[in-house]
């Protein structure tokens, strides 16, 4: 048990599964000798050899497509796409194949692959390096989409993703890679997929979020607590399929909900949560459902990226608006 960062937790989980299961492979651009541009795969080549830790040619469609082939052959490929902005050439393989290979063959073949990719803004990265387009994945039937928000959840959820018999896209917020450390025991214990994590209890308002935005959201909850306002904070974690049960139960208690995500608002995953509340949760709502999100524009370059990312004051303002509405 040691204090490690989120990116180290990813590394630890990969090493654990590579050691535990000979079917597990790691592949992607610069994942081998270089250990990944964020060092997520550091040391794996040395430990597990270049047959299992594979530097691929520069082609994301290939990476996803060959992962489908490997998975159909009973391997457990864990592919890395270097940044979410370079995931788009792989979407065809995810949508037309990975997500439906089992369905198309009536279970004869299956596709237990994991596709990891760093996501989000906030690290002063170049153009196309700050995307939060999880909607494109969450909408696809047959895909699981998981976003960890702490080292421990990164470790436990990545183990679960690798062991899952179906395809999982695993989005790692770059902003969290080295943001803080947490004690993580390398015990091979997976965390549950398809379930939200309630990070903080509260009776006055429910804050639903995932990924990097969990941190700003928790900060707001802390500062509200000082005023005696109880904010329940839910980390969705598996954003598809969605564990609405936990969210509905919380909102039943609080009557108010603010959804926080970094992705653009329009048809973001937050829209689905709000839509479900407008249907199944309507009678429990004491105030409008608010979303605090990235704007519906291209994520700006470094000089303005903080203006794009939902800041605590925007989250707090939304909460106050709800409390006043009541």
């Amino acid at each position, binding site marked *: 048990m040691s204090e490690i960062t989120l990116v180290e937790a990813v590394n630890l989980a990969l090493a654990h599964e590579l050691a535990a299961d000979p079917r597990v492979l790691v592949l992607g651009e610069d994942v081998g000798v270089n250990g990944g541009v964020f060092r997520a795969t550091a040391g794996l080549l040395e430990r597990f050899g270049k047959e299992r830790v594979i530097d691929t040619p520069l082609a994301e469609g290939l990476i996803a497509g060959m992962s489908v082939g490997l998975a159909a052959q009973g391997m457990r490929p864990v592919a890395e796409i270097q940044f979410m902005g370079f995931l788009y050439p792989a979407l065809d393989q995810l949508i037309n194949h990975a997500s439906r290979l089992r369905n198309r*063959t009536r279970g004869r073949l299956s596709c237990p692959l994991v596709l990891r990719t760093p996501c989000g803004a906030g690290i002063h990265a170049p153009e196309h390096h700050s995307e939060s387009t999880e909607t494109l994945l969450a909408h696809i039937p*047959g895909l699981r989409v998981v976003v960890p928000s702490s080292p421990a959840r990164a470790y436990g959820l990545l183990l679960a993703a690798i062991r899952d018999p179906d395809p999982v896209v695993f989005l790692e917020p770059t902003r969290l890679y080295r943001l803080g450390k947490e004690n993580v025991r390398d015990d091979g214990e997976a965390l549950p997929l398809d379930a939200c994590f309630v990070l903080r209890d509260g009776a006055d308002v429910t804050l639903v979020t995932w990924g990097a935005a969990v941190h700003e959201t928790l900060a707001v909850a802390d500062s509200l607590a000082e005023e005696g306002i109880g904010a329940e904070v839910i980390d969705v974690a598996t954003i598809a399929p969605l564990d609405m049960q936990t969210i509905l139960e919380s909102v039943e208690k609080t009557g108010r909900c603010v959804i926080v995500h970094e992705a653009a608002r329009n048809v973001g995953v937050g829209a689905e949560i709000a839509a479900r509340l407008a249907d199944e949760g309507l009678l429990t709502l004491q105030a409008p459902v608010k979303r605090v999100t990235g704007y519906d524009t291209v994520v700006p370059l470094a000089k303005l990226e903080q203006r794009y990312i939902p800041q605590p004051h925007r989250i707090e303002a939304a909460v106050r608006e709800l409390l006043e509405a009541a």
Partner: protein
Amino acid sequence: MPRSVELAPRSRRALKAGASRECVARFEVHCTRFLDADGRPVAELPEPARDARSLVPLYRAMLLTRQFDQRAVTLQRTGRLGTYPSSYGQEAAEVAIGAAMARDDVLLGTYRETGAMLVRGVEMHEILAYWGGDERGMAYAGPNAPRQDFPISVPIATHAPHAVGVAYAFKLRKEPRVAVCVVGDGGTSKGDFYEALNAAGVWQLPVLFVVVNNQWAISVPRDLQSRAPTLAQKAIGAGIDGEQVDGNDAIAVYHTVSQALLSCRRGGGPRLIEALTYRLSDHTTADDARRYRSELEVERARSLDPVPRLRAYLEREGAWSDADEQALLAEQARLVDEAVEKYLSAPPPKPGAMFEHLFATLPPALEAQREAVEAEEGEPS
């Protein structure tokens, strides 16, 4: 086949001093054929084909493919099957690919690989089920089914990278198996095809790429697909061997594919074969080829039909007769009848089937939807 006639200097070495302009690499593409259009040998036949009787199974499979194909088209025309892509005219290439493969090789093909699929053990009624709009057609549940073969790939060339993954697994596990990836001439224009070719080259994987060049991609002729005079030369950019074969000469395809498979199996790396053939049918039953190609061209291609070509050879060699032909036609018609019967009498899928294989275990979040669709009884309005 493209290969360096002299050792091609690696790029970094080219930085050394030299002449102002030097040749650093040379490549050639070859084409193989044994039978001419009338089924007469143009050269000595390869070993296993010398006994003409050994070719009879190939011929039988070609004829079955053709009969099945005709029936499928008829079923579509009479409203009992969905859109169907005929492989009329391509039977030699298809059947020979399937026949040359080992049982535990893996086939990854397009929608026009009916001949190969039948030879590999996919059941006729399954193929019909698939084109009839029933996912169970790709379950390959028959007794001789090639259970690890990939389902038909409709999105063009998207299965090429799958073949790389399959072959990577073979190589990693040290299994002497080959992934056989079949694409059309149109498919060679797609980035996936090229990415797969290139990666298979890097890792020297046991993948055989077969380009079934039937001269058309729906209405787009081969010449508008690429300026390259051969599609075999697509291999050169990936640093692998590519060659052409007369795809209407079953013996040539069988021989060339067999040799390439052997090389792949022995660790010789990936190979590319371009099989030159012609689609004698419309693209699918939803297409009308008269809109974009001349009857003259089709007429000419018909004279190169692979089925009579092989038959002529077999008859000349005394390995086949008119009586054999009639008996076989009757026998196969019966088999096709049975398959059609099985297809038509299969109970329709239950609505809930759409959730049955979405995940290994349906997540709780989707239970309500499954229940809703299952609850809908009777005919959809």
